[in-house]
């Protein structure tokens, strides 16, 4: 599905170049449930954003279904993200001035092609599936962390994506709620064949996935230390 070849990504902190990810090659296959495990600052989130086509790598290639995305324009990358990628974040990243329902509908605002479903209906169905339908008119600040994360998963699923990228989705939740969120992600993979990439620094969380990718100091390693 998506292949990274010798991918590097660096940032500039002032004048200093920071290599967040370096020479990473990996492949994520369709319908896979995979985790990227690494400690804080290891570059795992950057790696996830690169997989999610949020930005071009500094060097190396990203192949999406065989096509090199480095040639894609911002418009094309945005369209792919909108249609095929769903992000779930540690801090939920809902927009506080919008209600839960409006947040879930947000990706449809940026759809450039015709949508083959009724956005309102689908959003409500997803909220029901996530068991937070009764919270649909609440603002994110007024609901619990677990509920916010469920809302953000509903948002990620809105455009029927092929891949869900979850960055420490349980990081801001208590163990019980975290487990429930992991159950939801797992069921998405099992029941709906959605590819799920789970980024975490917690080994037990990674243990739940079928495959684990270890990252340290921006490089892939064989073992998690």
């Amino acid at each position, binding site marked *: 599905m998506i292949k990274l070849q010798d991918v590097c990504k660096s*940032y500039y902190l002032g004048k200093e170049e920071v290599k967040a990810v370096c020479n990473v090659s990996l492949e994520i296959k369709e319908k896979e449930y995979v985790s990227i495990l690494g400690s804080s600052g290891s570059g795992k*989130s*950057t790696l996830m*954003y690169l997989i*999610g086509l*949020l*930005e071009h790598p500094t060097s190396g290639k990203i192949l999406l279904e065989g096509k090199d995305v480095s040639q894609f324009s*911002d*418009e094309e990358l*945005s*369209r792919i*993200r*909108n*249609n095929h990628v769903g*992000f779930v*974040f540690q801090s939920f*990243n*809902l*927009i506080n*001035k*919008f209600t839960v329902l409006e947040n879930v509908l*947000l*990706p*449809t*605002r*940026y*759809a*450039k092609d*015709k*949508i*083959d*479903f*009724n*956005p309102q209906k689908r959003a409500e169905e997803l909220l029901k599936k996530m068991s937070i339908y009764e919270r649909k008119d609440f603002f994110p600040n007024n609901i619990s962390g677990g509920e916010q994360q469920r809302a953000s998963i509903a*948002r990620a699923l809105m*455009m029927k994506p092929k891949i869900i990228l979850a960055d420490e989705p349980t990081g801001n939740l208590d163990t019980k709620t975290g487990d429930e969120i992991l159950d939801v992600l797992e069921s998405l993979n099992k029941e709906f064949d959605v590819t799920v990439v789970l980024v975490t620094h917690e080994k037990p969380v990674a243990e739940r996935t079928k495959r684990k990718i270890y990252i340290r100091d921006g490089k892939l390693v064989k073992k998690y230390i």
Partner: protein
Amino acid sequence: MKAQNGFTHLFKAAMADFKRNKMRTLLTSLGIMIGVLSVVMLIALGLGLRNYIEEQFESLGANLLIIMPGSSLSGEGGLSSFGPGLIGGIEFDEKDVRSLQGIAGVDYVVPVSFKSSLIEAGSEEKIGYVESSNEEMFKILNLEILEGEVFTKSDVTRRAKVGVLGYLLAEDLFGDPVDGIGKTVRVENQRFKVIGIAKKKGDNEMDNSIVVPYKTTFGTLNPDKSFFTIYLGVTSDKDIDFAKEKAKEILLKRYEENEFSVTEQAEILSAVNQIFAIINSVLVAIGSISLVVGGIGIMNIMYATVTERTKEVGIRRAVGATKRDILNQFLTESVVLSVFGGLLGLIFASLLVLIIRIFFPAAINLLSVIITLVISSAIGIFFGVFPAKRAAELSPIEAIRYE
């Protein structure tokens, strides 16, 4: 089904932000509001002044030729020749008046001399104007008499020491203007018996004048026996061109071509309009400075907004927003902010103009409404585009991590 990424969503998002920051929104719009208010008010006052002057000219009556020192107000000379001709130019005399009376189609000839003087009655005194002319003067002034009568041709011929008082002058000198009838007023030691009081005309000059027979002032108030202006009343508008040519012909015998002008009322009006167009542009240009300052205020706030909402930009980019979507979002906000200020300014200006209209014919026309909306949108775009561009160019990964 097409996604709703239209203006409605952008507008709603902008409104949601404004609601959360009511005070900031109001203060930012205030800059544009003041700018628009000043520009619209200046246009309104300019228009009002022009209307006022046009009314004054129109009240002079139709088919009038105006002969003045100095070269033409309009036409070849243009406005540039307006100034110097008036200062230190020629003055007309009775001989000119007699010659002009001979033109076929000319109904009446009205010579006018005019000066500002201290006018006294009993112990009261006031600075007013002395207009010396003949009996036909009242025709061109369209002056209505409140009490008494106007002087006649024979009053002019026999140098009668009589005068007609403007309403305000009479009021200041006698309390109740009507009480002035039969009383005597003094102007530079010359006495005039008040035989008529004019109705209030709303024209400061006329309402503060005393109109006296011109011959009476010869050698005293008008020692040179000269006139500043001569009006020719022409029978019908068909005769205007002929009378104008004839008048020029006659005057050219005594004066140089550039020493006098024979102008139709319409020409003076167009010259006045030209002058006001220039004055108006200058005023609007000055008012526009405040619009620019308002625009900078918007830019400042938009930069702050972009920084504040960096994370939101990251989230929107993650769910599929393009750079252009982000640009449009922030641009919409600054335009809405600016147009909101513009509308507020327009509303306040309309209210002010309604109040001013009680005293003065100020006016807001459709053009100033359109200009306001176009300019405030343009300011929104111009000053919003830089912050919006910054938002659009944010690195999505860095934006999403921004705390």
